């Protein structure tokens, strides 16, 4: 099967070569032109730089500073060095929140990826009313988390919920969902997967539609089945898209908060207290802002590391000339 391999290796070289800018042309007029270019460039991005600086960088730095303080946001702060971090290392509730976050991430990310891919494949067809189906799949993404939370608490109510009542009707066992400490985290996974599949499907669909149809046609002429072509041509070609989604979903699941806040509030018995919810509790219920900031810093570092690793792993080997 030479077609898929080639396709995977060279997804972006379908453009005719001469159209790609060559370095030699650009280096002709360096000097002043470059400086004016740079100034114009900075002028154009300065609003964004300013906004990101004020709302992005400054807070990050401030949170970092805060993490070395005892600070209740009201009385003067006290410098306590690494005290918050030391305390964090021995905090069983924090450890539990990490465990919950990891369990959540390990379930949420792969399930969402696979379901998104399948949904995208199903939506990548020319059939009557396809727009309606596409909108239907995407609607959960634009639905407010709070609304989703309220709807799911009702759907998954152990006594009056639609899901249990259906299970009961067909003679299957029913569940406690959000009210059972052993099931609540999985219920949150189910709810968030539902909310995110539309987003994943949208990205995958865009990726699928970017794949030239002649590749698929060629495969079919070579006698490849539709299913085979999907798994051996389209899915490998979606590698950059999958990589992006993997990183994006992982970051989001490590930062899970809204859905927990809207449904279980970390309970029952802290079974859904994820890291950011714990941070929220420390910062805005107990007013331990310094301690909460140290949690934020730890989470920031963890996400940075995970993201770098994921980006490396999901990088297209052909782009850097081989596996890194």
């Amino acid at each position: 099967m030479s077609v898929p391999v080639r396709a995977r290796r060279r997804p972006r070289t379908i453009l005719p070569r001469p159209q790609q800018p060559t370095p030699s042309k650009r280096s002709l007029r360096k000097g002043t032109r470059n400086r004016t270019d740079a100034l114009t460039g900075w002028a154009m991005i300065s609003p964004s730089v300013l906004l990101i600086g004020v709302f992005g960088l400054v807070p990050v730095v401030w949170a970092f500073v805060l993490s070395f303080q005892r600070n209740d946001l009201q009385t003067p702060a006290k410098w306590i060095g690494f005290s918050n971090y030391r305390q964090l290392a021995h905090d069983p509730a924090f450890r539990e929140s990490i465990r919950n976050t990891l369990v959540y991430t390990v379930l949420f990310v792969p399930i969402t990826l696979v379901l998104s891919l399948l949904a995208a494949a199903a939506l990548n067809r020319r059939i009557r009313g396809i727009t309606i189906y596409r909108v239907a799949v995407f609607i959960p993404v634009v639905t407010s988390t709070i609304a989703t939370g309220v709807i799911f608490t009702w759907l998954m109510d152990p006594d009056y919920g639609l899901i249990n009542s259906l299970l009961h009707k067909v003679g299957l066992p029913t569940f406690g969902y959000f009210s059972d400490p052993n099931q609540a985290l999985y219920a949150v996974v189910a709810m968030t997967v539902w909310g995110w599949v539309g987003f994943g499907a949208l990205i995958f669909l865009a990726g699928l539609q970017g794949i030239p149809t002649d590749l698929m046609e060629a495969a079919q002429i070579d006698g490849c089945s539709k299913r085979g072509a999907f798994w051996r041509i389209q899915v490998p070609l979606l590698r950059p898209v999958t990589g992006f989604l993997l990183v994006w979903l992982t970051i989001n699941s490590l930062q899970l908060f809204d859905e927990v806040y809207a449904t279980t509030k970390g309970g029952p018995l802290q079974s859904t207290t994820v890291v950011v919810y714990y941070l929220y509790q420390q910062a805005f219920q107990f007013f331990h802002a310094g301690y909460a900031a140290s949690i934020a810093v730890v989470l920031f570092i963890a996400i940075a590391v995970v993201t770098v690793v994921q980006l490396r792993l999901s990088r297209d080997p052909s782009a850097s000339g081989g596996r890194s």
Partner: protein
Amino acid sequence: MVAVHPNPLRARRRRARRFAASAAVVALVAGVSAACSSSGGGSGGGTTITVSHGYTDIEATELKVQVKQWNAAHPSTKVNLVFNGGNDSALQKTVAGFTAGNYPDVAYEYGSSAAQLAKQPKLLDLTDKVKAADVDWSDFYPSEQQAATVNGKIVGVPALVDNLSLVYNKALFAQAGIAVPTNSWTWQDFRTAAKKLTNASTRNYGWAYVNDGSEDTVWRFLAMLWQAGGDLLTKDNKKPAFDSSAGLAALQQLRDMAVTDKSVYLDTGNDNYLNLFNSGKIGMLWTGPWDLSSINANVKYGVTYLPGYKGDHETISGPDLYMMFDHSSSRAATALKFVNWLTSAKVHLQFAIATGDLPVRKSETTLPGYQTFLKKYPAEQVFVANLDNVKHIRPNLADYAQISTAVGQMVQSVMLGKAQPADALKSGSAAVTSALAGS
């Protein structure tokens, strides 16, 4: 002793809290204040103060009306009313405002926030100010006075008061053929009735308990603990005191009902219980006046005191406060005058008549307008009378939120059948000990 209490969680307020909370997280991470109102300046010769509140619906409408009255009568000292996004997040908003240097002159706050805000250097200490004759401080109910006091310092003026009473669905009692609750019901009467009202096949429950581990879970337990003669902390607020025979009795009663009889619907904290009460699925609630307006007109209900333990029908109350913060002496003086006026018997009774909120001053019940109030809200009479059954108050500690979380976990674990009452008391007590030590 001092008083605290995260106020009853009203359904509508609670919804608002979620949005506000995400905003609050952004505020911390952003380190930029989450938008408080612009502070009123002293322009044009007069003084303008900012009053922030989280009232919605009828209460918000009436407050606006009253502020308009004040502004018409006091052209040189104007009040600028600002909605803070919901009372559930008032504390977070106010604190963020201090961080940004942009805070209201007067803020409506839950009693539970009193101890936190008492730390605020800008807070106006009212201890001497309430001694003025025109304030008539002793006219406020004692539990309100206590809720406004932190370490002997008076930090706010009572803005709203309520308490827990027993609300029951008359039709369900008639259907089950059992006598309706009375003011002298015992815990056993309550348990028996709840069991009779429960029907697994129709998914009917005798009682609903908010079992999300929040203060909503805690305060119903506290009422039972106090009835049984126990208390949350020792008198000096230094140690937990609920690992006692009273604590055991209260938790055992909860376990007997929720686990043994399965006669309790365990609400996960989304206020589903009220919809279920409206649908005739739940026979009895322990709730406050704020829920009455959400009960459908076709549901006929009655109200009594909470069932008692050996004749003690103590309940728990949640006074909220107007707290004042210093900008300048003229603004502080205006703030004080305005709050005094707003919480005076005559003006507050107007508010009560319009909204169905309980009187905050004892003398309101002696005014002629009070009869109008009772005629308009007949069910409120029990709640007003029940204010006399408020004996204890929650400890007014800055770390109360942590204590509450520990106790909430304890009650939750028993209700879910995950722990035996005696074991739960031990671990709950240990958790509270470490919360107190961490302060």
